[in-house]
């Protein structure tokens, strides 16, 4: 083989991409050709020298990085949503005033309400709604006036209305929506009419 080809193969070899039979051919050439042998050794030194620049010490920038992140929203209540859409605040007040009869209904209703497609998989204990370990609920789980405990998996959305939940976000595949107070309830019902929560 000629030296130009050999040098090209040396680079292929250094990339780890030269097959074993070509390695043998290259090795034979290098045994016989001192200038290519020299060239190869110099390239090996290049690799060694670049690797020498590896550093160990680095400053711990974690706190600085975490502090620089934009602030987080805690739960998606209607008040947060309204802050981002100020033009709609007037409309929201109108709705509340006009639909205040809903509010009185809401006040007296403290019954536990559970909505799920897979009722057989959950356990109800007093006002506690439990998705046991090992169970997977495919679909949404909506609970009013209850305490939800997800020990298994929920592959849909979780909607907690005037209640609480205990679950790691790792167990819940969809979104977690917390609805409390009168305004949120009205919004939740309205949003339900439009098909989004």
């Amino acid at each position: 083989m000629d030296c130009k080809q050999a040098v090209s193969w040396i680079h292929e070899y250094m990339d780890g991409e030269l097959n074993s039979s070509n390695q043998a051919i290259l090795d034979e050439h290098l045994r016989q050709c001192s200038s290519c042998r020299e060239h190869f050794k110099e390239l090996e030194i290049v690799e060694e020298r670049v690797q020498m620049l590896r550093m160990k010490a680095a400053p711990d920038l974690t706190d600085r990085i975490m502090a620089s992140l934009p602030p987080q929203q805690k739960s998606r209540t209607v008040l947060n949503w309204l802050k981002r859409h100020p033009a709609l605040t007037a409309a929201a007040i109108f709705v509340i005033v006009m639909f205040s009869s809903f509010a009185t209904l809401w006040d007296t209703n403290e019954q536990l309400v559970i909505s799920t497609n897979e009722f057989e998989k959950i356990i109800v204990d007093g006002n506690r709604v439990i998705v046991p370990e090992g169970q997977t609920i495919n679909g949404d789980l909506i609970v009013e006036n209850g305490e939800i405990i997800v020990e298994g998996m929920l592959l849909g959305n979780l909607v907690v209305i005037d209640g609480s939940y205990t679950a790691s976000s790792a167990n819940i595949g969809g979104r977690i929506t917390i609805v409390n107070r009168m305004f949120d309830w009205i919004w939740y019902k309205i949003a339900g009419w439009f098909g989004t929560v």
Partner: protein
Amino acid sequence: MGGGWMDLYEARLAQLARNGDRVAFRQLVDHYQNKIYHLAYRMLGNAHEAEDVVQETFLRVYKNLMRYDPAQKFSTWIYRIGTNLCIDILRKRKRKRNISLDANLFDSESSDGYDFMPMDEAEQPENLLVLSETRRQVREALDMMPEQYKSIMILRYLHDLSLQEISDVLELPVTTIKTRLHRGREFLRSRIEHSQESG
């Protein structure tokens, strides 16, 4: 860069972070801040700019989590953001010094640009002239290379990325990566003194 399971774990952390889980995001910061720091330090030559790049990289990751595709490796994505930030900074430096982008930086005569780069001496104390000479030589040679060649050398030799990974990070074909890696090695070979010559 970690086996397949590490990639899955990091993709899952990114998904959790996307849903607002700051603890998960912090884990990603722990995994990658050193790597991005070393990448930026080697590309830019000083600690101050390297720290800025680390912070900006994670800020961009955080703001763009919605766009992260879990099918892609998280490492590829964050390396791409960090590398591109460094490349942009290096290009701005060049423009400030009015060096033509077409100048062949492999030409040994046009190495003046190097003198204006904000380099840290911190890596090796100045008084250790002989002991630090070898590292200084290769560092200087590396800094003469155009950004795209330099980034490939750094990703390959200091971050152990495969050719395919480098191709994914820089969004260039593997054949281009190979050509530039080969040319980069040859350039460094020509700039580094070998034991026979320095006698």
